[in-house]
C-alpha cells in the first residue's frame, strides 16, 4: 500500500450548474502507485469532478494540488502539462490516421518536424512495460474498441501522464479484454503511476482498486479503505443510500413462438454478417444472446429490427412472415426495439424529448391524422410516460440530450412498452447505467415476460444475461455457436463458447 505524499489532491471542490450543485466540498487525493476507485450513481457528480480535474470546467470553489503545489487547470493542455491524462468514455481519436500518427498529434517538435522514429521507440517501450502492444501503422478505424481504448491509455502515457483518469473503461469491453486492461493498470500502478478508476461495476472496483471514494448527490458519501474486503452490497448502500436487492425471476411457462429466424444470412459492409442463423423466442420467455461484441450481434439486431434485409432465410413475428424487412413492417407486426446506442440510433438529442418518444409511431393514428400532427396527443403521451416511468426531466419539451443515460433508457423503454409489443429486442440494455436504473430496467423486462412478451436480450454482461434469461444462445463469428438453458449455463462455460472453443446445439 503506497504511503508517500499525494500525487494529486483536490480540496473542497464545489461546482454548480444553475441551481444544481454537481459537486459540493469534495476532497480527494491519489498517492503515487495508488488505484483509487470513484463510485457513484449517474448524476452523482463523478464526471463533473473529473472534468474539473482535467480542466474542462472551472470549479466555483476549492483548489487542486499537484505534488503539494497548488495549480490552476484551465484546459486539457494545462492538465497534460501537470501530468494528468484522461481516457474518456467516448474516445478522442482520428479514425483515418494510424496509431502512431494519433500519438504524435499535437506533439511535433519546435521545428515543426514529426519525430517518427522517436515516437516508434516510445510506443514500443510503453507497450513492453505494461503489455499495451499496438501495431503502429494500423489506421484507428481498423482497431477494435478495446484496442482504441488501449491507444487512448498509451496516448496519455506518451504525453507523460503521472495520473491517469479512466471514465468507465470497462463499459465497452468484453470480459477477456477487461482482464488485459486490469493487468496493464496494475503494472502502471507498480511503477508509481496514480490511477482514478470510475465504474459502476462493484466487483471490478473491489478486484482492482486500493481505496474508494463514493459520491452521492455531489458530496462524498463515504470512503472505503479496503475495497477487497468490503462487500458489494455495502458499497451499493453507500452509493444509493439504501439497500438494493436484485429482482427475482419467477417461474414462467413459455407459450407459442413469437419470433422465429430460419437460416438467416446477411452480407454487406457493416460488421460481421450472419451465417445461417436460426433461433426462436416464445411468449413469456427471455432469450439471452451472449458473445464478444463484433460477432454478428449488430447484424442480428438490425435484421430483427427490419433495418437490414436478410439475403437468405425467413423470419416470422407473431406467426406472420416478414416479407420486406422494413422498420415499419416489423413494428406493425408487434416488434418493439430498444437500441444498443441510445444517442445515435434511438434518440434525437437536439429535439424535444417528446419527439423522440413518438418517433417510431409518428405516422400512426395515435399521433397524426392525414399528415397533420396531433400536438396535444404527442404531448399527453410523453407526459404520461414521464410520469409512469419516473423520467427525471423538466418536461416533455426538454431537449432529449439534456437527460441522463438512465432517464433516456427509461424513455426508450416507455415508448416501446406503451404499445404492448409481442416481441422486444434489446441490446446492452443497462450499459452505462447505475445500479438503481439498471434494477428498474431489469424489473420491467421481467414484468413484460410475465405478461407474455417474448424478449431477446443481446449483451456482453454475462451476469446480467444469466439473471434475466431463460435460455442463452452464444454468437460466434456470425453463427449461433450453441444454446443453453440458463440452469445449465455458467459464466465459465459461456465464456468458453464465446471464444468458439465449445459448441452445444
Amino acid at each position: 500500500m503506497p504511503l508517500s505524499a499525494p500525487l494529486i489532491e483536490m480540496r473542497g471542490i464545489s461546482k454548480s450548474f444553475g441551481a444544481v450543485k454537481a459537486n459540493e466540498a469534495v476532497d480527494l487525493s491519489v498517492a503515487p502507485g495508488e488505484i483509487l476507485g470513484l463510485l457513484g450513481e449517474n448524476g452523482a457528480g463523478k464526471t463533473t469532478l473529473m472534468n474539473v480535474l482535467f480542466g474542462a470546467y472551472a470549479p466555483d470553489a476549492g483548489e487542486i494540488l499537484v505534488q503539494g503545489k497548488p495549480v490552476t487547470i484551465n484546459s486539457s493542455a494545462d492538465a497534460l502539462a501537470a501530468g494528468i491524462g484522461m481516457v474518456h468514455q467516448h474516445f478522442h481519436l482520428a479514425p483515418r490516421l494510424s496509431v502512431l500518427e494519433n500519438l504524435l498529434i499535437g506533439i511535433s517538435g519546435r521545428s515543426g518536424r514529426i519525430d517518427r522514429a522517436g515516437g516508434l521507440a516510445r510506443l514500443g517501450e510503453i507497450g513492453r512495460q505494461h503489455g499495451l502492444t499496438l501495431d503502429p501503422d494500423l489506421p484507428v478505424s481498423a482497431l477494435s474498441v478495446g484496442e482504441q481504448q488501449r491507444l487512448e491509455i498509451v496516448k496519455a502515457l506518451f504525453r507523460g501522464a503521472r495520473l491517469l483518469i479512466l471514465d468507465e473503461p470497462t463499459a465497452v469491453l468484453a470480459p477477456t479484454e477487461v482482464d488485459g486492461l486490469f493487468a496493464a493498470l496494475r503494472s502502471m500502478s507498480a511503477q508509481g503511476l496514480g490511477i482514478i478508476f470510475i465504474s459502476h461495476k462493484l466487483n471490478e472496483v473491489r478486484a482492482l482498486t486500493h481505496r474508494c471514494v463514493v459520491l452521492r448527490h455531489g458530496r462524498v458519501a463515504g470512503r472505503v479503505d479496503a475495497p477487497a474486503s468490503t462487500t458489494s452490497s455495502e458499497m451499493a448502500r453507500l452509493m444509493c443510500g439504501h439497500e438494493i436487492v436484485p429482482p427475482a425471476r419467477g417461474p414462467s411457462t413459455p407459450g407459442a413462438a413469437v419470433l422465429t429466424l430460419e437460416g438467416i444470412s446477411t452480407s454487406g459492409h457493416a460488421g460481421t454478417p450472419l451465417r445461417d442463423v436460426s433461433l426462436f423466442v416464445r411468449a413469456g420467455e427471455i432469450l439471452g444472446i451472449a458473445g464478444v461484441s463484433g460477432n454478428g450481434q449488430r447484424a442480428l439486431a438490425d435484421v430483427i429490427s427490419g433495418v437490414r434485409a436478410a439475403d437468405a432465410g425467413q423470419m416470422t413475428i407473431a406467426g406472420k412472415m416478414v416479407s420486406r424487412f422494413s422498420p415499419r413492417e416489423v413494428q406493425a407486426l408487434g416488434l418493439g426495439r430498444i437500441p444498443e446506442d441510445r444517442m445515435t440510433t434511438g434518440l434525437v438529442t437536439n429535439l424535444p424529448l417528446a419527439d423522440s418518444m413518438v418517433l417510431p409511431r409518428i405516422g400512426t393514428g395515435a399521433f397524426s391524422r392525414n399528415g397533420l400532427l396531433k400536438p396535444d396527443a404527442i404531448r399527453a403521451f410523453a407526459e404520461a410516460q414521464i410520469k409512469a416511468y419516473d423520467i427525471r426531466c423538466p418536461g416533455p419539451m426538454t431537449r432529449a440530450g439534456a437527460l441522463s443515460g438512465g432517464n433516456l433508457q427509461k424513455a426508450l423503454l416507455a415508448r416501446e412498452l406503451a404499445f404492448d409489443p409481442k416481441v422486444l429486442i434489446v441490446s446492452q440494455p443497462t450499459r452505462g447505467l447505475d445500479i438503481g436504473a439498471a434494477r428498474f430496467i431489469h424489473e420491467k423486462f421481467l414484468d413484460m415476460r410475465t405478461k407474455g412478451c417474448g424478449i431477446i436480450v443481446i449483451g456482453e454482461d454475462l451476469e446480467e444475461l444469466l439473471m434475466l434469461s431463460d435460455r442463452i444462445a452464444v454468437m460466434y463469428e456470425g453463427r449461433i455457436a450453441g444454446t443453453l438453458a440458463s440452469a445449465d449455463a455458467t459464466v465459465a462455460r459461456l465464456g468458453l463458447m464465446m471464444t468458439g472453443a465449445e459448441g452445444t446445439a
Partner: protein
Amino acid sequence: MFRLEARTSTPAWFNLALPLLAIGATLVLCSGLIALAGAGVIEAYGVMFSASLGDSYAITETLVRAAPMIFTGLAVAVAFRAKFWNIGAEGQLLAGAVASCAVGAIPMPGPLAMFLMAVAGAGAGAAVALIPATLRVKFKVDDVVSSLLLNSVIFYALMALIEGPWKDSFSGYPISPPIEESANFPVLLEGTRLHLGVLAALIAAPLIWFLIVRTTLGFRIRVTGENPEAARYGGIHVERVLISTALLSGALAGLAGVGEVGGVHFQVMSDISPGYGYSGIVVAMLARLNPLGVVPAAIFLAAVMTGAEAMSRATGVPAFLSEVIQGTALLAMLVALLFTAYRIRRVGAAR
C-alpha cells in the same frame, strides 16, 4: 481570463436576442468602413434608415425587395432543417424565372397565366434542386458542392437563352421578350410597386412554418436533419425525406424567380437576381431556420440593400457596403450561434 463552457440548456429568449445582437455587432463593425470612406457614420446610417423604412413608399420598396429573399430564405431554411445543404437557391430562382417567363409570354386569361407561371416556376426550381439531392442520395455526392456549382450552370444556360433564341431582335439587348401584359401581377397599392408576389411571400412564411412544425412531413424533415440514423431506425425513409425536402426547397426558390418576373421586371435578363439566392442563406441563418423569422430577416437585408443605394448617393460611400453588411451579418450570426451551446465564463489567471 475568459473561457467557453458548455451549456446544459439554451434560454428561449436567445432566439430573438441573438439575431439582434448579430445585427447590432454588424452595424458597429461596418461603421468603421463608413468612417474610412470619409462619411459620418450617424448620417450614413440615418440616410440608410430613412430611404428604406422612413416613409410608406420606402417601406413598400423594401418589401418588394424582401419578397424574393423571403422565398429563398424559406427555401434554405427548409433544406437546412433536413441538413440538405442547398446552396443552389440562386440557380433555382433563375430556373423559376425562365420557366415563368416562358409561360407568361403565352396569351391566355390573366389569372390562369399567373397560376401557371407559379406552377412552372416552382416546378423548374424543384427540378433543379432534385439534381444535387439525387446525386447525394444515390451516389453520396456532396450536396454543398453540387448545388453551388449548378448555380453557374443555370446562369450560363440563362445567358445562352437571352443571347440566343430569346434575344430582343429589335434592340439587340440580351433580354427576353416581355410576358403578356395580362400576366403582370396586380399592384396592391396604387402608386407603388407592391405586387401580388409580395403578399404571396408573406403568406408562404406561416404556411411553411405550419408544415415544419405541425405536419408529419415536417416532423420527418426535422428528425432526419438532426439524426438520420435514429430516423432510419424509427421507420422514416431518409432518402425519400431528403428528396421531398429538395423538391420543396427548390420550388420555394423558384417562386422567388416567378415574383421577380411577374411583379417587378416582366421579363428575364442577366441581372434579374442580385444574388437573392445567396442572400437567402444569410436570411435563413439570421432567422435560425425558423420560417417565421425569415420575414423580418429578409426585410432587414432588403432595407440594407435599398438603404445602401440611397446612402451611396447621399454620402459617396460605395453601395458595395450592402454586400459587406450582408457578409458581416452572416459571420456575426454564426459567431452568435456559439452562445446557444456555450457560455463565457471568467476564470482566475493562471498562477
